[in-house]
């Protein structure tokens, strides 16, 4: 068996809760014993509502946050021990959520794209040539290199962010809600671009999103994250057609549907006061049913 591009084993992250005197009184478990792996060329979707720990996982993979415990292995080698930061950067890169704030407003697109190339040790003409190549790969004209981010649309900016991330030719791209700041029509085009680039460059993706409808088309496998734990995992069509966990059902039921056929395959969720309940309310209801099976 080949070594997975990314393997996460028993990852934990707790944030200390401090009282007014700066003493730690409690701990918030942002990520709770999470394990999964991503094979070469695979798209792994990490779904969950805001606060479920998705972004914390991404930040730990990128080294922006330190895990409390657990291991992050990239191509079989542990991030915590031995692997130099420079080496890791060549293997894993990230596309941030908001292209408006992930590009420096005072630097041109070309200047922003230079950063990873200079860090790689390229110089002179080679950098300019590579910038043109990268812009071409994300289907932007070469003269965009002289422009400032405010002259670009949201979708164009996100293309630049993608170009910057693939500049070092990584194996894995962490996509932290890459389309949530974009219009729906633009989202699909960015996803198409990612699919094409993934095939062309043999990239693996960790796709983090709260939008399950996007994930269904894009991800090969899905992990559903609830309060820092992976509550369900499996091939994406399997998860969609036959969700095992109530929380997954709730997430799928929350996706807006247009046609009657779509409505028919929508999982049934007990309504509370005629509305789709919150995750907490639904899981509390299920817990109650488990304790008093007769009341149904």
């Amino acid at each position, binding site marked *: 068996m080949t070594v997975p591009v990314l393997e996460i084993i028993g990852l934990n992250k707790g944030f200390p809760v401090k009282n007014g005197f700066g003493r730690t009184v409690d701990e918030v478990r942002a990520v709770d014993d999470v394990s999964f792996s991503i094979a070469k060329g695979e798209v792994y979707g990490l779904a969950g509502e805001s606060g479920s720990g998705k972004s914390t996982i991404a930040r730990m993979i990128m080294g922006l946050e330190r895990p409390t415990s657990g291991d992050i292995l990239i191509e079989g080698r542990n991030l915590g021990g031995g692997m130099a930061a420079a080496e890791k950067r060549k293997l894993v890169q990230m596309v941030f959520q908001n292209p408006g704030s*992930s590009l420096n*407003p005072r*630097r041109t697109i070309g200047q922003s794209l230079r*950063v990873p190339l200079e860090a790689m040790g390229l110089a002179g003409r080679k950098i300019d040539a590579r910038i043109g190549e990268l812009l071409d790969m994300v289907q932007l004209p070469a003269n*965009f290199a002289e422009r400032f981010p405010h002259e670009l649309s949201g979708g*164009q900016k996100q293309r630049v962010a993608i170009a910057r991330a693939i500049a070092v030719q990584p194996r894995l791209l962490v996509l932290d809600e890459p389309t949530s700041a974009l219009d729906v029509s633009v989202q699909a085009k*960015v996803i198409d671009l990612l699919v094409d680039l993934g095939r062309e460059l043999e990239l693996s993706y960790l796709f983090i999103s709260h939008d399950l409808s996007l994930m269904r088309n894009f991800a090969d496998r899905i992990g559903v994250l609830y309060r820092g734990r992976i509550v369900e995992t499996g091939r994406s069509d399997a998860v969609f057609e036959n969700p095992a966990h109530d929380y997954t059902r709730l997430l799928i039921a929350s996706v807006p549907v247009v046609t009657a056929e779509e409505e028919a395959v929508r999982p049934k969720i007990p309504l509370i006061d005629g509305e789709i309940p919150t995750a907490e309310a639904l899981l509390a209801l299920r817990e109650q049913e488990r304790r008093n099976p007769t009341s149904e």
Partner: protein
Amino acid sequence: MSDVVNPKAAELPRLSNAYQNWYRFSRNPTAVIGAVIVVLAILAAIFAPYITPYPQHAGAVVNFRFRHLPPSGTFWFGTDDVGRDIFTRVIFGLRVSLTLALVVLGTAVPFGTIMGLIAGYFDGWTETIIMRLTDVALAIPPLVMALAVAAVLSPDLTHSMLAIAALWWTWHTRLVYSMTRQIRSQEFIEAAETLGASKFHILFREILPNCISAIAVKTSLDCGFVILVGASLSFLGLGIQPPTPDLGTMVAAGSAFLPEHWWESMMPGFAILVLALGFNLLGDGLRDLYDVQEVK
């Protein structure tokens, strides 16, 4: 916000940022008045020997036949107690004031900016030491500091400049520090970090360009203040020593002959007012241009 890449749109002529800024600046009357005053003052100071009617009066010339003459066609600003042309001496006096501003801010602004970037980006002891140092420095009024230094060393311009510069950098440190703290938390800084940019690159290429407009505004406003402090020192006899013409010294010398020979202190005083006003108008104009928020 369309993402359609239109090849024609990419070819449209594009107004450069510099031109856009210039256009907006030229529409702001106070800013233009300020800029004109400042540019004229600088040109007058540089070319003083060629544009003044009696350049030899900048030195120790005695001409008792013409002493205490009121403003006229021959002597535009009148003459002083030894018969020298006040207009000539005011123009030469600009040299001292502008040199003072240039030297003080030329050392204080770059130093203060670098300290602010460092304190804002690095946590812990570095931040604590630099920021507590600025607290101490800000508690001392520059004029008092200059008086103390002049008393300990000897009363001349170099010592006054040293004293003012030694305190002035802290204002810029605090300004840049607060901006750096704010910019540091933005995604483009994290993006640069994950792309492998050096600390030097992040401080001077990513953060600094976002502070430049605020620094320019503050520096321009500071010019006015430094000139006033310099003039105050000269007035108290701690700045430039006679016979070198200096605006503050001339106001002090002329005050002995008030009110009947009013022009002897009013004319240089008026020059100080216009010069300080010019820098303040320019600074305000730049602030409007960059839409910089007031930093306390």
